[in-house]
């Protein structure tokens, strides 16, 4: 099977689905790029990270729509096109920018079906997330918890190229608004990715490592971190289940609960601060539905309650690493 990067997998999914379904549209800033420039070259960017490269030459500017820098109008237009029968895939360059278009997510996309008595708005909003590039406090956040707290939208956070392609294809075909989070630190990671059409279902996590002593839940770029910690501990005979939920909403609660019922110990590794976040939600799940199985407090491994810092050494300190995970695993095991 061919190996492809996360970036290539997403680009391929967009090509495949635009080919298969002519109602699929791309809309965002610089998704092609070059319009109005002095070189006259279109597709000059193909998205700021190159994820939409090649779509404009293949599908034309009617379906690959470069917009002004107007996030509210981008998501609003995607909402309108979705209500009017199309399947727009809108791009918000950095998830941090939801601040300027949040109404269109929070009050519009998420609510149409409910408040309009069953209306369909099948849009996808792709946005990059995550820290690790010294991009500073306004270009590094991961807002999966915030977004997943809104009923009516689905939130995906793939950790590898295979899942990215399959989840994106599923997202575009889904009948609900879906937010597809692309972690900036994963773009160059490669794995085996089939060429053709396949989908990854929502609400089905994967057991990345199987063990018996501790359950580790991790998503996005932190799956790698969790696996590194688990592999190291395995050499000492401490084995962990490492669960990648893949989709934050809907969440594969059963996979997590089954594991916790066996191990009795849970570590939640997450890139957002724990307060009111995804890690807290997973801890709540265990407390509510696996209470009698727990043999130790649930430990979050999360950044401090601060914005994402700029300086590389501070950013490294901010992000959970394998040593933090290892320490947490040892701590829950030490609890008798």
């Amino acid at each position, binding site marked *: 099977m061919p190996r492809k990067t996360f970036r290539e997998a997403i680009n391929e999914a967009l090509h495949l689905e635009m080919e298969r379904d002519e109602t699929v*549209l791309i*809309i965002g800033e610089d998704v092609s790029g070059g319009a109005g420039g002095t070189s006259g070259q279109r597709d000059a960017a193909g998205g700021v990270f190159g994820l939409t490269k090649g779509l404009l030459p293949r599908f034309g500017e*009617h*379906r690959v*729509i470069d*917009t*002004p820098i*107007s996030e*509210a*109008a*981008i*998501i*609003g*237009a*995607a*909402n*309108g*096109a*979705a*209500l*009017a*029968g*199309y399947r*727009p895939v809108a791009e918000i360059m950095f998830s941090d920018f939801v601040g300027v278009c949040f*109404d*269109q997510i929070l*009050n*519009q996309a998420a*609510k*149409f*079906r*409910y*408040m*309009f*008595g*069953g*209306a*369909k708005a099948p849009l996808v909003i792709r946005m990059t997330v995550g820290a690790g590039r010294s991009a500073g406090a306004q270009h590094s956040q991961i807002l999966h918890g915030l977004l997943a707290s809104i*009923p*009516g939208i*689905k939130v995906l956070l793939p950790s590898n190229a295979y899942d990215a392609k399959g989840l994106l294809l599923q997202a575009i075909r*889904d*009948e*609900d608004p879906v937010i597809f989070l692309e972690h900036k630190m994963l773009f160059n990671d490669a794995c085996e990715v089939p060429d053709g059409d396949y989908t990854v279902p929502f609400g089905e996590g994967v057991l990345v490592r199987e063990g018996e002593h501790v359950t580790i839940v991790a998503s996005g770029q932190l799956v790698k971190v969790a696996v590194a910690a688990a592999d190291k501990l395995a050499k000492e005979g401490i084995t962990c289940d490492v669960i990648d939920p893949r989709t934050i909403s809907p969440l594969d609660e059963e996979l997590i609960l089954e594991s916790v019922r066996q191990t009795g110990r849970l570590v939640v590794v997450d890139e957002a601060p724990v307060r009111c976040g995804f890690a807290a939600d997973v801890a709540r799940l265990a407390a509510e539905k696996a209470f009698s199985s727990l043999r130790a407090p649930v430990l979050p491994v999360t950044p401090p309650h601060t914005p994402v810092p700029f300086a590389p050494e501070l950013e490294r300190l901010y992000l959970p690493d394998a040593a933090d995970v290892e320490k947490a695993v040892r701590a829950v095991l030490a609890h008798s």
Partner: protein
Amino acid sequence: MSIRTKKSTARATAQLSGLSQEAIVRAYRQMKTIREFEERLHIENATGAIPGFTHLYCGQEAVAVGACEHLTDKDFIISTHRGHGHCIAKGCDVPAMMKEIFGSRDGLNKGKGGSMHIADISKGMLGANGIVGAGQPIAVGAAIACKLRGEGSVALSFTGDGASNQGTVFEAMNMAVVLQVPKVFMFENNGYSEHTGASYGIGCDDIVKRIEGFGIPVFQADGFDFFSIYEAMAKALEVSRKGGGPTAIYCETIRYFGHFEGDPQNYRAKDEVQRYREEEDCLMKFRRRMEKSGEVPLEVLDQVDAEVMALIESSVAAAKQAPRPLPEDLLTNVYNSY
């Protein structure tokens, strides 16, 4: 400070509209239906029969009907929090709307939307919207869909003077120009942004200049005169339906009731509404014009009045008897799967 400087220019004339008798009667029926729908809601709301917030469109009927009489189900509109008039004008079912406003599970939105969120996608009505200024970008998206379909359909958004100050409206106007989509922006200045006079919030005091600044041609019309709006909309559609990009209509009108039902309206001169009802009322003007031109006998309009009153009466009676939501309705239509 007076809420507006411009005086209405429309007079009752003997001029023929050029519309068929059928079209004239239909337009009158729509306007009258909105009027009586709203007048009745004003009464019902005072009894406590209607849950939540209700914003009435009374007084502005000529705007919604003058614009929507040009549209078919293939055209889209998006409305505001003051949306009943736009919904009726676009063809939403009146008894189902009434049930929705009363909160019945048989309502147009299954009782889950209410007054501020009435929608019927099958009619091209993409929703009344509780967020001021949210609809305009959505209408740009619907206009993208119209352009891609290539069937000459358009998207129309209604924007009040209050929403005209929202950044989302500016973004939508600019994007509509950039993408050259078939989009009509209707700006209906009813004199008040909630509890504040329109002139206070519009920094440059001129919405039209602002729209023109975006590169959008504006057709001005008299918001109290159906025929004036109808003609302006025809001009706008002549551009937007034929690939000429976005257009706008600007008109001034007045709402007869408060921002919401229960609003004490301390910001208004005591006789203001009465004066507009007596001098500028769109239904009164419509009838006067018919009286002069003789295009439709007044007896025909009287008959319409009676039919509309009966429709509103039966709609309210049905809404009061309609089944209430069931506990399980709470969890439906969150996602496709539940």
